[in-house]
C-alpha cells in the first residue's frame, strides 16, 4: 500500500517536444506529491510539488496534473530542452500540518533524454 509506480522507465524526446511522466499511488493517506530531478553524480533536487487541494500546478515549463479519484499524478515538461535530460522521480508522503510531512515514498524513476 506504500508503493508509488512510475512510468515510463525511460523517455526520449526531441528538443521542443513535451515530456510526460506518470505516477500512480495506492495509499489514500498520501497528500503531498513532489517531483525531483537528479543529474548524474548529484543528489535529487525538488522540481515542483502539489497538494491535492488543486488539480494542476504550473511553474515555468513544468506542470503537475493531479487526479485524486484515479490516484494518479503526472509531470509535463513543455518545450523540452537538452538541459532537461536527467532522471526524474515522483514521490508521495502524508502531510501532518504546518511544515510537518511524513517520509517520502519514491517512484522508480524515469530517465529522460532530450535530443537537440
Amino acid at each position, binding site marked *: 500500500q506504500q508503493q508509488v509506480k512510475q512510468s515510463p522507465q525511460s523517455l526520449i524526446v526531441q528538443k521542443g517536444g513535451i515530456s510526460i511522466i506518470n505516477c500512480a499511488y495506492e495509499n489514500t493517506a498520501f497528500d503531498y506529491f513532489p517531483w525531483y530531478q537528479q543529474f548524474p553524480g*548529484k*543528489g*535529487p533536487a*525538488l522540481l515542483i510539488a502539489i497538494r491535492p487541494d488543486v488539480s494542476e500546478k504550473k511553474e515555468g515549463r513544468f506542470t503537475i496534473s493531479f487526479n485524486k479519484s484515479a490516484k494518479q499524478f503526472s509531470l509535463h515538461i513543455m518545450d523540452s530542452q537538452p538541459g532537461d535530460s536527467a532522471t526524474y*522521480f515522483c514521490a508521495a508522503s502524508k502531510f501532518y500540518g504546518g511544515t510537518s*510531512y511524513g517520509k517520502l515514498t519514491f517512484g522508480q524513476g524515469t530517465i529522460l533524454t532530450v535530443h537537440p
Partner: protein
Amino acid sequence: SAVISQKPSRDICQRGTSLTIQCQVDSQVTMMFWYRQQPGQSLTLIATANQGSEATYESGFVIDKFPISRPNLTFSTLTVSNMSPEDSSIYLCSVQGRTTDTQYFGPGTRLTVL
C-alpha cells in the same frame, strides 16, 4: 534552501570494514534522513535520524548494520558496518527545514565495496 555537504564524496572499501559518512547542514533542521540509492535505482529510506534519541529504521534496515548518530540539529552520521559488495551504493543525506515542506538532498556518498 538548505545547503548540505557530505563527507566523503566517494570511497572504495574492503569487505568486512566499516565506513562512517558525515552529513552537515548550514542551518538547523527538524528532520534528517538517510537514503540508499543503488546504481540506476530509486531511493530507499534507511532511517530517520532523531536528535537526542535513537534513529527510526525502515523495514529491512537494522541499527547494528547502519548505526546513526545525530548529536545536534545540523549534523548526522551514518555508519555502514561490516561491509559486503552488496552495500555498494550511493548514500544520501536529506533534511527538512523548520519552516519549509521541502526535503533537500545532499550530493551523496558513492561507496564501492570490493
